[in-house]
């Protein structure tokens, strides 16, 4: 398992201070907007960034001052960093050669991983002959091959198109489960984090503002900024909250608190037809609310539709 204690890094105009823990076999997603310091945490854990103060433990061993090659962590780079002069096979075998595995075992392990990421037919190709998705899977196999104690993933799906991302997300989840990997996953995409991770940690300007299981973090965001970052649209300021009959303060109405089809009439202001789902901006008692769900055919803007709002689902958030 991985434990980071009071890790501090300072750049001009930016200070980072982070503590976190990842249990054995767990995937923790570190999410935050770009520039929040996620990648710096990852690089510090990998040993690629010198640490001024704080401690990093892996499996109970203090690795803070250890060079990267002795930490036995795997790092999946955003741009994959595949070695262009080596074949797919030799890329995956790279770490095993460094760890001085006997040749038959290297062969067995490389084969096992190439099978796991379904790349056996491409074993002798060079990285530039592969598609983006295939390169990503080679990078994953290469990082996993030496059985790292912790796998670090830096926006591994960031460079891929949407359709491929979904497919690889499922593949990544399967591979991490099959290998029983302890993983720290950095991304700016909250949906990716929710789908993949056992727990998520939200980072803002060098600090972790909230940690928890995805459902809990989504339902009870620490503050309005976190709520917005996680994709919440219905944040009520004190005036709007009073209109709806909530006690004074900042409130969050989760999407499932809104139910169209019954209750008071609300005016449809804007319609976003997304195919399987439809997004609606509604005017409800003078408050703008967003609802998204299966609705076909989508209503026309300007029409009204009945809407019930379950205020018992509302959550008070810090401003």
């Amino acid at each position, binding site marked *: 398992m991985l434990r980071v204690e009071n890790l501090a890094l300072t750049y001009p105009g930016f200070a980072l201070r982070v503590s976190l823990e990842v249990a054995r076999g767990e995937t923790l997603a570190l999410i935050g907007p770009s520039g929040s310091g996620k990648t710096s945490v990852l690089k510090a854990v990998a040993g690629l960034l010198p640490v001024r103060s704080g401690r990093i433990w892996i499996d109970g061993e203090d690795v803070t001052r250890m060079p990267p090659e002795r930490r036995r962590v795997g790092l999946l780079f955003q741009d994959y960093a595949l070695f262009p*002069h080596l074949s797919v096979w030799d890329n995956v075998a790279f770490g095993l050669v460094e760890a001085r595995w006997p040749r038959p075992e290297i062969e067995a392990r490389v084969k096992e991983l190439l099978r796991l990421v379904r790349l056996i037919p491409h074993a002798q190709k060079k990285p530039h002959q592969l598609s983006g998705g295939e390169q990503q899977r080679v990078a994953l196999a290469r990082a996993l091959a030496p059985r790292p104690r912790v796998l670090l993933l830096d926006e591994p799906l960031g460079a891929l198109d949407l359709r491929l991302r979904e497919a690889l997300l499922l593949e990544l989840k399967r591979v991490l489960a099959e290998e029983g990997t302890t993983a720290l996953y950095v991304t700016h995409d909250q949906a990716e984090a929710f789908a993949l991770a056992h727990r998520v940690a939200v980072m803002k300007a060098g600090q972790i503002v909230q940690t928890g299981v995805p459902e809990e973090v989504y339902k009870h965001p620490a503050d309005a900024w976190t709520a917005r970052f996680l994709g919440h649209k219905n944040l009520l300021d004190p005036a709007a909250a009073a209109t709806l009959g909530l006690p004074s303060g900042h409130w969050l109405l989760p999407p499932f608190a809104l139910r169209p089809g019954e209750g008071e009439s609300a005016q449809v202001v804007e319609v976003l037809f997304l195919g399987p789902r439809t997004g609606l901006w509604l005017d409800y008692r003078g408050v703008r609310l967003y609802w998204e769900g299966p609705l076909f055919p989508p209503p026309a803007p300007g029409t009204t539709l009945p809407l019930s709002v379950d205020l018992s689902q509302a959550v008070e958030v810090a401003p």
Partner: protein
Amino acid sequence: MRRREGLFYLVPVLFFLALGALWPLYRVLERGLGPAALAVIADPYLMGRFLWSLGWAAGTSLLVIGLGLPLAYLLRQAFPGRRLFIALLTVPFVMPVLVVAVGFLALVGPRGLLGVNLVHTALVLFWAAVFYNLGLAARVLEGLLAGGEALEAAARTLGAGPWRTFLRVTLPHLRPGLLSAAGLAFIYTFASLGLPLILGGPGFATLEVVIYERLAYRLDFAAASALVLWQAAVLMGVTFFYLRAAGQGLVSARSPRPAASPRARLLLGGVAWGFLFLFLAPLWALVLESLKTPEGFGLAYYARLFANGGSYFVPGAGLAIKNTLRFALAALALAAPVGLFYALGVHRGVRGLDLLGMVPLFLSPVSLGVGYLLAYPFWRASAFLLVLAYATMGFPLFARALIPALRALRPSWLEAAATLGAGPLRRLLRLELPLVRPALFAGAALALASAIGEFGATLLLVRPEWATLSIAIYERLGRPGVYNYGEALALSVLLMLVSGALFFLFGARAEGG
């Protein structure tokens, strides 16, 4: 690529090359092939010269990559004045060969600043050749190092220590850069006349020097032609090797690694600038020595240059500066359109064109001079011969600055222009040329620098009234007395200033884009 469009690029380049390189080369082949070529091998003196030339060029290549790699690591670090440092490091590469040779005389010559006479030793020849090529090699390697840092990080997390990472990842990644730096150093050294002629003396004469002497002192066209062929064969092999290696290397500009602490930053800066101070010693020694006259510190040598006005055989400074600028600008006017046609044709994939453009690279300056003397005896009275030689040597430099810039243009820009109604010529004028403007200036700067500093071909083709600065310097070096030496120093400083000024005038515009 339509056939007619291909001919549009091919014909002008072919016409120019036929005039500037192919016909002279044919005339050399005619004279040199056969018994003359074999007689050259049988001559143990000439064989010795040939082997020494190979040894000097190969040794320089090894030294350049051996020293260039640590220097490239230094360039990767952040330190005060890093950008200026990089610019100054490449200054020797664009300096005329006579400036460098006289600079070494000023530093370690018989009357040199250090008081140690290293002239006519192998040491000074290797030193001068490394001085020429080191900066460029370090810059190429620095770009590659920057591009490989992500790969190094990947190797480290996979368990490879620093040394193993260097062997298994960094070195293979650097390979194209190392090969191309070595190849370029070899070509420049092997084809250099100025350094061995002035610093080497008879003991260290290279093939290039021997060709010049056979022709200038004995008018032995047969032997000179045969030697040219041997030299061209070596240059051809190395050029192909170099271009293949260089094609694979990608140079990227990235920000340097931040220093670990402010103290480390200052320490690195101290080391770097200390090194540069020593590295550029021949240039500042030249300036310093040119001011040290028998009458004390002053401008006496410079005053003499302009006061005398020169004689028929010892050209004055005014005439030499005028000739140098005139010929160089005329050569640029010829090299730029040819280089543009060539670069566009190669970029558009005209078959065979890129191969054709390499021919001037096989011909050393003296070889080119031999070829012209054989091919164009009737033009001996025309300075056009000099301009043609400069343009033949300059247009590949111009084109090679342009081609990567053309390749870097996004095809979608041209497609957008086409859908907006711009035909091929309008696209060229409105899109491609404005977008590669910095490269046009960079190419022009390189072509100009090569023309201003040209020495080998000029020495063979020149007539007294066409004397350039390089020739005026060389004439004075061959004459006894402290004043001739002093005037050579002062003229070298002037040549350094002229080429430096023109290069930075054009270079600044190249950077601006």
